[in-house]
């Protein structure tokens, strides 16, 4: 039962195809709409778990340390992601503060936790407790993860302030660079293949 499903669907145009074995780095595309159907490289669970755990550590560093430090005539200040979100949530701007908190902090954190949880059990060829829930949430929140936008924002803020003040990128900024790369590499893997590789108990008693 660890074989992938015999058919694949194009979620962009509803075409249905028979699945073929692909070489590494080969990509199957839809003949109707050219969307990517599936990739040849099989998800390596140990490798993906290692990436996810690294991302978890980097996430903590990125959020605990300042991303930007500024100084002007003897005064200095620094800010990290969460402090920036609090500063944004000032008064009537609370609504946008919530959006920023969700997309820049809550969603990336949930992605790391849920993916780590699922993969930890997948190593032992088992479905984690709450596997179905975790996989559904991971699918739902995926479009709302915006760490790379935060990184670009840090860059723009540094340039914006450097005209008036002395600005340096803090350790949090470098951690965000690493985190952005890690999340991008992790996102290249289609974890939906885990549905086929970790068959559930049809009675639902042990899944």
């Amino acid at each position, binding site marked *: 039962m660890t074989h992938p499903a015999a058919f694949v669907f194009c979620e962009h*145009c509803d075409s249905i195809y028979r699945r073929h074995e692909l070489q590494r780095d080969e990509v199957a595309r839809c003949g*109707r709409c050219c969307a990517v159907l599936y990739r040849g490289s099989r998800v390596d669970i140990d490798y993906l778990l290692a990436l996810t755990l690294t991302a978890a550590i980097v996430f903590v560093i990125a959020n605990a340390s300042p991303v930007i430090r500024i100084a002007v005539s003897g005064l200095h200040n620094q800010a990290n992601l969460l402090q920036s979100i609090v500063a944004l949530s000032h008064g009537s701007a609370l609504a946008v503060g919530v959006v920023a908190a969700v997309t820049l902090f809550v969603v990336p954190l949930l992605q790391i936790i849920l993916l780590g949880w699922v993969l930890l059990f997948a190593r032992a060829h088992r479905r984690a407790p709450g596997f179905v829930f975790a996989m559904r949430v991971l699918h739902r929140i995926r479009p709302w993860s915006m760490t790379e936008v935060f990184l670009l924002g840090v860059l723009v803020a540094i340039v914006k302030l450097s005209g008036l003040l002395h600005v340096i990128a803090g350790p949090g900024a470098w951690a965000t660079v690493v985190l952005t790369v890690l999340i991008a590499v992790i996102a290249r893997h289609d974890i939906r293949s885990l549905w086929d590789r970790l068959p559930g108990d049809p009675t639902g008693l042990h899944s």
Partner: protein
Amino acid sequence: MNLAPRARDLGLTCCHTCGQASSSTTAHCPRCRSRLHARKPDSLARTWAFLLAALILYIPANTLPVMYTSMLGRGESSTILHGVVEFWKAGSWDIALLIFIASVAVPSTKFLALGTLLVTAQRRSTWAQPQRARLYRFVELIGYWSMLDVVVVALVSALVQFQLLGTAEPRLGIVFFGLVVVLTMFAAMSFDPRLIWDSDDDKNLPRN
């Protein structure tokens, strides 16, 4: 080469969450329990609603100030376009261009692209289907970069807190801007790209 058959024509619905195929009469995916639909429900009406709401909020997002800064007692409120001009004048044309793309070009492209996709899908047009499919994926790809301004305002407001020397505060415009990003993302998610190809069904059927 003949095109592949489509799931709905075979009486199948595929689950977007886990990829499992089920008979079209099934309401919930047997594997992941997600709700199944052959097509996203009320796709066109919902996409129009989100798109129009975003378009309306885009006006205050651009006309209202997004940030208030005071430097050495001189305070000013600036809009997003004002910020672009400031960067341009200061010689940072690359950053000016970046902000312009994220806050003007990306939302405008999304409005135009989703509008085109909606009108053509509504008219069941078979015009340029592969290009329209690509256009939709492009809209999905660029969607969230407009959050850039929100991030910049957040960082600057957190950093520039020097009492008399200088302070920065977010202003109402940034709220509208953030809401526009969220609404356009909902609009893109509500649109069902499979509708682009559903027009082909009309061609094969005799008109009555």
